[in-house]
């Protein structure tokens, strides 16, 4: 599955500042592995408490979330709440 990956700006160090990159994976976990191959160090950053938004849905623990071909995946910081 080829998907478009969008990184919130705090996650762009390993991509040299690129906000949007292409990568592959049938699940978000596989996608992260692939991203780590392409951009060493990105995997650690993405596994350390990051959520994704896919089709407008915020998913807090996305490792096994399946991905469709052409999906737009947004990595964002994990959130916490108050009441």
């Amino acid at each position, binding site marked *: 599955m080829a998907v478009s990956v*969008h*990184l*919130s*700006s*705090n996650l762009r*160090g390993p991509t040299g500042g690129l*906000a949007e990159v292409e990568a592959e994976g049938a699940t978000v976990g596989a996608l992260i592995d692939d991203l780590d191959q392409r951009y060493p160090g990105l995997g650690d950053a993405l596994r350390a408490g990051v959520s994704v*938004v896919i089709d*407008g*849905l*915020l*998913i*807090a*623990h996305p490792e096994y979330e399946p991905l469709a071909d052409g999906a737009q995946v*947004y990595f*964002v*910081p994990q*959130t*916490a*709440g*108050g*009441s």
Partner: protein
Amino acid sequence: MTVTEPKPSYKYVGTRPVRHDGLEKVTGRARFAADLNMSGQLHGIVVRSPHAHARIVSIDTSEAEAMPGVKAVIIGDDFPAVEPGHRQYDMCINVIARDKVLYEGHAVAAVAASTRDQAQAAAAAVKVEYDVLPAVLTIDQALAPDAPVLHAHMMTAGANPPAEEPSNISNITRFSGGELDAGFAEADLVIEREFTTQPVHQGYIEPHACVADTGQDGHTTIWCSSQGHFNVRSSTATLLGWETTRIRVIPAEIGGGFGGKTTIYLEPLAVALSAKAGRPVKMVMTRDEVFRATGPAPGTKLRIKLGVQSDGNLVAGDAYLIYTNGAYAGPGGLLGAMTVFESYKIPNFEVEALDVVINTARSAAYRAPAAPLTAYALETMLDELAEELGIDAMDLRLKNAVAEGDPSTMGFPFARIGFVECLEAVRDHPHFTAPLGPNQGRGLAAGYWFNIGESSSATVNLNEDGTATVVTGSPDIGGSRASMALMAAEELGIDPHDIRPVVGDTEAVGFTDITEGSRATFATGMAVVEACRKMVVELRGRAAKMMGADIDDVDWVDGQAVYTGSDGDKDPLSMAAICAKAKRTGGPLTATGSLEAHGAGPGFAVHLCDVEVDQETGVVRVVRYTASQDAGTAIHPSYVEGQIQGGVAQGVGWALNEEYIYDSDGVMENPSFLDYRVPVASDLPMIDAIIVEVPNPAHPYGVRGVGETGIVPPIPAVANAIYDATGCRLRDLPMSPIRVLEAITANGGSNGS
């Protein structure tokens, strides 16, 4: 109520039945944590540090142990050692200090005795020798080059280049989009402003309390009030080094939390004392302890620069945010960074946020953590821009408000959101154009909170008579039992009062995350709906058996199984009829729903506030208040309104009065409701709550969390109203009479603008 989109017509969702736990709560019978007593129970008291920062040289408990009635004394060394890097290191050493105390009120030991007086006397007899260290009490002190470092292991996360020396900065967050310099170059007007705010307390009326009963089998039962008893269980297990199965947590009624009861303070101490003494131990904090040792929300220093074009288009924003998180790493700055520019289309932006540690109590979440403060800064600056440009403050917001498809500052496009609808609801309210009296001013402000999902579980059990029990793992902190019952009623087609909503203990229902992030009605509601939908399938199957029909020919309509097949007429079967025959059709009727909820929809709110300012004394009175908020779908509108109104009151208190005051040694000077003044009934007017309903596409009923967003706009709404009344911009919280008066005087008397 403003309904913005056609929605399905519901029979029960959106109605206002009397809540199920109401009777117990108006008759004094409801059991809050401090109301529980066990036979043979001891009373536990915490020994707390009088110093804001000190090394513990030694602790001598021998005298205390020999005192009358004393059954157990514990200190930090009685718990398994924890090292930095441990997942819950901060929580562990916050609950009981090990080698160092980090704030005044930090627990260093605990005592259990037959009576509270005996325990108090023994606590006073615990001898702790301290090596007092210089305290770091402000952001400036924390960041000073020669500042004492609170944690020798604290290397700033997110630092670029990576940190080589420990410091008091736990974390740096950076977000950016577009080209900042180019953005400002396009601007016709640029302003830059600085703000300071002080820590405030959640101010729940019920102090923390628990009872723990540890048996000789090494298992313990904890009764406590918390926002999440599964979290109490796991945190307590971690701190004690116990297996989770040794701990059962039974939730008591909770007397307010607002985020402050998402963490633990007393429970592991009570368990350890109980294990040592072999008796149940009850611990109840005093209000003084609540103030000194629990919960404040961060204080901040904020600097924001905004650029706008003459037609009102925002083009650039630059934010530098510093949040104190008390003595341990916390998420204040991160959350500030994630919320500061989130409500408006600002194509070019940079945010840098620092989380710093100081020698005050460890911060805890407080409703929409961090967001009220960034809103204070941003929304008052928007008013300044509007005035400078000669654009109406409402129009400026409408012009720049984010809507579906617009990119969030995190990059993703927003799904369907209701910000514009909230703005319009206030614009169209009679309050918006009502005349003002002398010395009065009006302020408008908006707020945003992202809300969260997380894990929830629910079990639906049908009873022999056709009524239902719905068990969830979410403590009811403001009417959530009623909303669970309403959603179950809608699904099952029975009256909400034929449903008993129950908050199950850690052994009675599946794992459920803390009630935080406005997630109970959203996520636990989804679990309830899932369980009910499974139940309906089961009911159709049972009815099909009873009718001698195929399940596909049986529908569930209005609480009845209805035959839709072509094999003649068959009488519908009620829930009661099916339950009565359950033994013969397959046994008890029970279904569960457990899920990790995705797609918590962001919440927006828009507030309009009128104040009257006494020009002689600087006293500000809120005289009229209107608040709109997107609830997605209001399951029980009264409790949605209540969440909005409660948020307003807390926000007004934060704006005008509330602050932690420390002396130069870091000792809190106002640890009582007399000196830490929260709003009372005579401080506030009626609060007109407008529920906007832009359904959240991710929830079966369109619910968005409503618990938090309402506290975001009040501070800037009040500040903007004060400006309108006096011509003075107040950029430091609280906007207390003395500050307002100073500003009026500096401005050359009243209405000096």
